[in-house]
């Protein structure tokens, strides 16, 4: 995690005209939740794209992807006119690691690697830790795909947005919701594109558009046009 924080600072230093760091909350263990706001400052009010990574602690490739994505768009905008256009018209709000406490816990030792939830303690009568942040949002909360058993890996918390991390996202995006064109949350594994609302009885008003976008992305992937390869560089 310190490496990621240092990298964020470095990125901001390297690209001061397009990158700023915004602190928008704190985790249960009182760590700062920061995002990178990436876009050209035109003085005008801009539309936005949200992307969060690392909401599930063990999905290590997710924070890696956010960092990869940031590097790609920053390298591209100097040379690719389309990317430069995007930077002028949009702001990207990218959170490399949302569930910082959980992520740090997965680095502790071999037996903690597969931790998923955050690290808030369970309710009074429970010895288990953690709420699944991706079940804590106030969208058909506590209905499908969850458990009220606090030891469960998909424990949805005591209340909607009871968790500081989920609250931080809700407050930030909620207070700017007319600006956001697109909300992306990155996970692993599965090779799945999932769209709202994850409930059999509720369909998003823009469902057709969501499916259309997913299909286009899927076709790009299947055609081999998307070329993503990440290698780790040892320091």
């Amino acid at each position, binding site marked *: 995690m310190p490496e990621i924080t240092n990298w964020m600072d470095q990125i901001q230093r390297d690209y001061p005209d397009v990158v700023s760091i915004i602190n928008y909350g704190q985790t249960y263990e009182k760590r700062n939740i920061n995002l990178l706001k990436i876009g050209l400052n035109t003085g005008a009010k801009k539309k936005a794209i949200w992307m969060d990574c690392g909401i599930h602690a063990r999905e290590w490739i997710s924070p890696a992807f956010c960092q990869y994505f940031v590097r790609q768009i920053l390298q591209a905008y100097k040379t690719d006119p389309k990317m430069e256009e995007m930077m002028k018209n949009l702001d990207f709000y990218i959170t490399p690691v949302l569930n910082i406490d959980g992520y740090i816990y*997965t*680095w502790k*030792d*071999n*037996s*903690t*690697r*597969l*931790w*998923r939830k955050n690290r808030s303690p369970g309710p009074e009568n429970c*010895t*288990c*830790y953690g709420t*699944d942040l991706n079940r804590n949002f106030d969208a058909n909360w506590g209905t499908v795909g969850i458990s009220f058993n606090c*030891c469960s*890996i*998909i424990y949805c918390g005591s209340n909607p947005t009871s968790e500081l991390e989920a609250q931080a996202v809700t407050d930030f995006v909620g207070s700017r919701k007319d600006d956001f064109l697109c909300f992306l949350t990155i996970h692993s594994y*599965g090779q*799945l594109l999932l769209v709202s609302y994850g409930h059999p009885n509720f369909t998003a008003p823009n469902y057709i558009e969501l499916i259309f976008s997913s299909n286009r992305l899927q076709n790009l992937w299947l055609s081999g046009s998307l070329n993503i390869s990440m290698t780790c560089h040892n320091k």
Partner: protein
Amino acid sequence: MTNEELNPIHYPAQRAAKVVLHYLNSRCGSPYKLFELQTVYRVNAEDVADSGRKYRMEISVKEMFGNTVEKCSAEVLFPRGEQQGSPKVQTSCEELLKINTKSQEEALYQQYKTRHSLLSAQNLPDSYGHIEPDMTPFWCLGALASSFVMLAESTEETLYNMAQVTNITQLATEDDRLKFDYHILLHDVVSQEIIPWNLLITWSPPEGVKVLQMKQLPPHQKLL
């Protein structure tokens, strides 16, 4: 619902197809031969009175080490209602099963039959996804053994993968088979749970993998 054509790229079809792979790996895999699901082309699901729900499918299967791919048809019958037990699988896959890994298996077998010390290994892969190349056959053996469990435990609402071999302890034997105590972690994509299992297995090139005992374990304290 009696008869339904499923969308082959969506979840329910993928879950049913995965079961075929657990079947193939448990029956036909070796430390140098492991199968994975490539593509699901077509799936039809039908209720069978008094038995359960039968999924008929066209899929392609890939052998992981050699990269060969074969298209096969398969059927998976999930028991329902009063019927209990594991899903029943039939497949037409033939070509992939003929892949010959006998000489590599024999070399591995000889090496571990004649060694003075018994193998002991942990965390395959490690936290960074790494497996030492000479441990890969033992990771693979773990995957084959896990397939017995995953086949037995699969339902229409599960999607199992082996997440990790946490521990391997080789045990001495009186006969000509190699014997191992495996501690593995299964992951169910649907519930997202990590489920530890303990497996006592034997292996030899002529006989393949045999599971002597399998036992589900309680979750690790650090993951609660």
